[in-house]
């Protein structure tokens, strides 16, 4: 049951990352912020478990952290931050979903190891998602550098725009989820 909830979390997380531009470089930055927010969530989740206004405090913390992240990363690469712009504010929503999953568990018996595994799995899935988008659209992979996105391999001069667009991302996401669901089902059968 718990794994199913994490699976739903993974779906909603990836769905939130769909509007992010189709480059691995942007994906890495978004993922970095997401991981920071998740690591911030775990120490405070115990204190907020009995609080009525937990959601408010969490939003306040996450949005403040996102603004701080935006400001700090703007010093590193203003071009990338300008391109990401509003999409960065989609990220604080997903850790709130994680909070709703976790708060229903017994927060006293908090298993950090399984949570670290969840974060690692989530990060790998997101990196694969962004890599697939960029490989299909640009035939290359990119990294975030101060001057902007740097292509590791020579990219298409005329990219296949469909895979870089939102419908393309949704199709990749649909295929990815079907694959994950299939693997999950096989694993449950073997257990």
């Amino acid at each position, binding site marked *: 049951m718990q794994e199913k909830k994490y699976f739903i979390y993974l779906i909603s997380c990836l769905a939130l990352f769909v509007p992010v531009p189709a480059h691995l470089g942007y994906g890495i930055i978004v993922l970095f912020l997401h991981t920071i927010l998740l690591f911030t969530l775990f120490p405070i989740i115990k204190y907020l478990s009995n609080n009525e206004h937990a959601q408010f405090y969490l939003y306040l913390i996450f949005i403040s952290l996102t603004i701080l992240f935006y400001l700090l990363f703007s010093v590193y690469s203003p071009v990338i931050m300008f391109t990401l712009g509003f999409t960065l504010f989609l990220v604080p929503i997903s850790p709130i979903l994680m909070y709703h999953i976790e708060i229903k568990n017994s927060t006293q018996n908090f298993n950090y190891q399984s949570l670290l595994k969840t974060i690692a799995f989530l990060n790998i899935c997101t990196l694969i998602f962004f890599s697939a988008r960029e490989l299909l659209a640009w035939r290359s992979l990119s990294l975030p550098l101060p001057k902007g996105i740097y292509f590791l391999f020579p990219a298409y001069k005329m990219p296949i725009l469909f895979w870089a667009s939102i419908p393309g991302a949704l199709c990749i996401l649909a295929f990815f989820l079907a694959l994950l669901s299939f693997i999950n*089902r096989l694993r449950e059968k073997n257990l």
Partner: protein
Amino acid sequence: MIIQSILFYTFISSVVLIYGVGACSLMTYNHNFFHSVIDFCKTLIVVIVSIIITWTINFLFLAPYHAAILFPFFAFLSTFFITIFFDITLNKLITFQKYNFQTAFLIVVVSLSESSGFLQSIIIGVISVASFYILLPFLFGIRKRMQNIQIASDFKNSLEFITLALIILGLYGICTSWLRMDIFL
């Protein structure tokens, strides 16, 4: 400028389909017609009031000190408190499921970051809310149809994403077509 904004955010760049604002909420939305209408009115008021408050704070206190980047923080505060106020007032009148305020917050952020003036930000906000609720009956109909579909269980989760992709392709297919006019002419 007003007509240009309305046409752009209604047809050319829908805030739900292109920006992805509220796409997640749209897929899990399951209120009936009456609650959807109340929800629409509530979101509209929350968005307009939040835009007014945040724009005023930005104009008076943030922009003169080059601190406009902090506006999402104030957008969050205003949206959250107005949503809570509405939740409390509406719950006294009717039993109403608590509304997720994320969509309203993201619409406020989009409309303030994309606009160049007060009136334009209000217009973008109103159109964004409308574009979210216009899509609701379509997705509801599709979801109803999908309940009767015989399909492998692994693809059931994916089907809604593919449906949304097809809707976007139907509306904006020319933008992602291989036969783009600017390339071939």
